[in-house]
């Protein structure tokens, strides 16, 4: 199967520290098809942003391949990469620090256009024209064109960030927690905008968040990460209907969705988070897992397709065999 829009194979990123290597992303595989959204969820520090940056090669991955329309972007030289940057963009988590405070809205949105010479022989008016068009697309009033980012609220700043990304006519955007710094009411506006843009422009997204309810609204597939590993991956509806990995279950129980037949009790995670610095070869979730079994320390559990399109990495869950359900006595309840 070579027809995927984006395919990531065994992607690794280790950061060197004095005490050892931080395994921020450790052997991640996934594919995304054109026009679809992959949601990436997980708690703070599990490597979501690092994954997003590696996929765009904003930082150099330690190992692995990122195939974008069949080309491995890790093997591109500088010029090829510069050309490809127009197609792959990123929207940042923090709209306060992702805009240069010394540039006006006009400068900020015009910068990518001018720098990449997107409009041949562009006059000042051509560029202003395009900037105004983009501002209209993302919903910023024309009167704000000469304001500085610090004069605007978070939602508007995030719109500028989106306009900057869109200015290059990308096909693929990594949204790194684009709404987590915003008020709930503004979150919805930005999410709707992103969704509208996806539909109109046929964009493909990686949507990073730690908020499962946001990702449910948005994604076709959801990938759950824990300390650099993918622990579960499934289509969004399937994941919400039938979460299998103990970590996913805990995450889902933490969002209070109204349920008719009684909300299952909120699952509490106890125990210590395994250090991401040179972690031992065992299930990284074992120390906090409510379902501890003997197999947990027997190497890193592989990501297996337990049910069609539903992948889980847990020693207790294999295709056709789910010990967590069949043998509830394993639930130690520490």
């Amino acid at each position, binding site marked *: 199967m070579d027809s995927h829009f984006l395919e990531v194979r065994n992607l690794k990123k280790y950061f060197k520290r004095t005490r050892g290597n931080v395994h921020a992303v450790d052997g991640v595989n996934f594919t995304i098809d054109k026009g679809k959204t992959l949601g990436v969820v997980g708690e703070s520090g599990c490597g979501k942003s690092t994954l997003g*940056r590696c996929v*765009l090669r*904003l930082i150099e991955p330690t190992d692995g391949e990122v195939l974008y329309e069949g080309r491995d972007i890790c093997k591109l030289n*500088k010029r090829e*990469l*510069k*050309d490809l*940057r*127009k197609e792959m*963009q*990123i929207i*940042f*988590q*923090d709209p306060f*620090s*992702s*805009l*240069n*405070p*010394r540039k*006006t809205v*006009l400068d900020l949105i015009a*910068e*990518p256009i001018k*720098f*990449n010479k997107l409009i041949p022989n562009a*006059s*000042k*008016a*051509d560029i*202003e*024209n395009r900037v*105004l*068009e983009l501002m209209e697309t993302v919903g910023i009033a*024309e*009167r704000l*064109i*000469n304001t*500085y980012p*610090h004069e605007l609220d978070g939602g508007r700043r995030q719109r500028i*960030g989106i306009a*900057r*990304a869109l200015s*290059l006519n990308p096909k693929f955007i990594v949204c790194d927690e684009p709404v987590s710094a915003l008020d709930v009411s503004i979150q919805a506006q930005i999410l709707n905008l992103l969704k509208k843009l996806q539909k109109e422009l046929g964009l493909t997204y990686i949507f990073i968040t730690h908020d499962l309810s946001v990702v449910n609204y948005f994604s076709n597939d959801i990938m759950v990460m824990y300390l650099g590993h993918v622990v579960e991956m499934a289509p969004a509806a399937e994941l919400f209907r039938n979460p299998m990995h103990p970590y996913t279950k805990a995450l889902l129980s933490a969002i209070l969705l109204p349920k008719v037949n009684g909300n299952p009790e909120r699952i509490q995670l106890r125990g210590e988070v395994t250090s991401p610095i040179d972690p031992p070869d065992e299930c990284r979730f074992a120390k906090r897992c409510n379902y501890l079994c003997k197999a947990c320390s027997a190497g890193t559990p592989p990501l297996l397709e337990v049910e069609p399109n539903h992948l889980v990495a847990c020693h207790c869950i294999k295709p056709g065999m789910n010990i967590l359900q069949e043998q509830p006595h394993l639930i130690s309840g520490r």
Partner: protein
Amino acid sequence: MRKSKSATLISKQYRRKGFLIEVWLRLRTNRGAVFGLAVLALFILIMVYTFIFMTPADVSKIDSKSRYLPPSSAHPFGTDDMGRDLFVRVLYGTRYSLAIAFGAVGIGAVIGTFFGSIAGYYGGWTDQIIMRITDVLHSLPGILLGMVIVTILGAGLQTLMIAIGFTVISGFVRMARASVLSVKTSEFVESARAIGMSEFRIVFSQVLPNSISPLIVTFTARMATSVLAAAGLSFLGFGVPVPLPEWGALISAGRNYLTTAPHLTLFPGIFIMLMAFSCALLGDGLRDALDPKLNK
């Protein structure tokens, strides 16, 4: 789609006035900065005046009958040990101090900022090499370094400027490096990388403009100390050659007559102080005026 190609796409009232005009409008509201600017402008006018109307002969006209005269209407600043008119000499000396304050410090600032930014942004061995050289420069006493350079290149205004420029480099390297370090990890730098900018360009178009405030403060502080350092070198005979009236040299020459003819040190001293003071005031104002966040 908008189709119009005219330059008036943005309604008039939302247009911006241009960067320098905006900076001036902000600077104008700061009284100290306006004072500093006015004094410096006056010094520059004086310099231009002396270039047009004074010859070196006027400045060293010896008159043995009128030595050590106190200030009077004929000699507003009095006369010195050889009966030369101090007013003429002080005005003529403006050019040296301005050359040191702007020229020498400017050269040092450009070179220092360039290497400091590169060291801060790239890190690794680039940083190591640049910073070790800077450490060596920094550990040599400025006066000594200046004397060595003057000895090698021979005395004169240009040499003095090179010597002073050299001694201020290390300060700018460190300052630029530190401020680059503090902004280089911010997301807008990453955002620039994402639109395809090269690292080199990012340093100068994204990182440095955000490090400008501390650099301006360093610059104006260095202007003041450099005027003094130049005076020190002149005093030791390593500066501007003797008969030329550099302010520092005038003070040195007058120091033996502090009690009998205090005007010999007083007037050049006031001029040095005015120069240093107005540099500092202007620097403070500029730092604020260049920051759009402080816009009212």
